[in-house]
C-alpha cells in the first residue's frame, strides 16, 4: 500500500516528544540576565533611599579612608599600652603624630 504524504505526516505527528523541564523559564531568564534583583541591592535600599552598609567600607571608594582610620586606631592602641609601661610624655608625642595622620 502506497503511503501518501498526509499519512506520513500523521504518522510522524503521532510520535510525541518530551516536554521542557519546569525550571526552564526561570533558568533561561537568569542566564540571560533577567534574574531577580541581587540581595545586596535590595538590602541597601529602603523607601527609595540608599542605606549605608558596612560592606561598603571595603569598596574602592571608601577603602583608603577605612585604611587610614584602621592604622590610626592601631597606633592609638599601641600608644596607650606603651604609655602604661614607659613614661607618660610619649603619649603626647604619638597622639599628636596620629592626629596629624588623620
Amino acid at each position, binding site marked *: 500500500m502506497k*503511503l501518501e*504524504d498526509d499519512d*506520513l*505526516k500523521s*504518522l*510522524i*505527528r*503521532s*510520535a*510525541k*516528544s*518530551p*516536554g*521542557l*523541564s519546569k525550571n*526552564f*523559564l526561570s*533558568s*533561561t*531568564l537568569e*542566564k*540571560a*540576565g*533577567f534574574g531577580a534583583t541581587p540581595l545586596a541591592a535590595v538590602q541597601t535600599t529602603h523607601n527609595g533611599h540608599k542605606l549605608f552598609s558596612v560592606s561598603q567600607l571595603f569598596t574602592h571608594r571608601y577603602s583608603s579612608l577605612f585604611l587610614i582610620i584602621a592604622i590610626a586606631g592601631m597606633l592609638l592602641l599601641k600608644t596607650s599600652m606603651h604609655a602604661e609601661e614607659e613614661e607618660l610624655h610619649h603619649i603626647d608625642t604619638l597622639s599628636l603624630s596620629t592626629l596629624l595622620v588623620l
Partner: protein
Amino acid sequence: MKAGFFSSSPEKNEADMAVLYAARNGDKHSAEQLILALGPNAHALAWRMVNNTAEAQDIVQESFLKLFKSARFEGRSSLSTFFYAIVSNACLDFLRKKNTEPLDEDEFELQSFSSDADPGHLLSIKQQAARMQSLLLELSPRQRLAISLWAYYDASILDIARTLEIEVNAANQLLHRAKANLKILLKEKP
C-alpha cells in the same frame, strides 16, 4: 499551536521585533513571552535532532541567549523562523561534534497524556513514538530537520529553506529525499 507556527506578515514581524527589542532592552516580561511562545516547539525540534532531553534543553537555552544578545533579526521572516534557524544550526553543530546515542524510551514524558490513562495504551504510544524517533534518527541530520519542520510545524518549502539557510530548490529536494527515505524505512522496519 503548531499549525501556522511559521505564519508571517509584515505586521506580525513588526510586533515580534518590538517584543524582541523590549527583551533586549531588559524587559523581563517580553523575554518571558518569547520563551513561553518559542521554547516548547524549539525544544521538541531540538530533541528530535539530538535525541536527548537535557542536551536539547541546553541547545534551546543557548539559542535564546543568542537571540537576546547577539543575533540580528531584521524582520524579513517571522521571528519563529529566525529562531528555528538558530536552533537548527545549533543542533547541526552539536551533531557534528557528537554522535547520537541510542534512544532511551524513559525519555518520554508525554505532556498531553493524563495520569489516569490506560497503562497499556500509554506503553503503546511510547513504543510508537520511540519507533518513529529511531526511524527519524536514521535519516541524515538535515533530512531529519527538514521532515520534522514539515511534519510537526507545517513548515512550507520556503520556511524550510529560510530555516536551513538554503535555496528553495535545495530545500524541496531535501524534503523529497527525506520523505522517500522515511517511507522506505517504514516498509523495511515495520
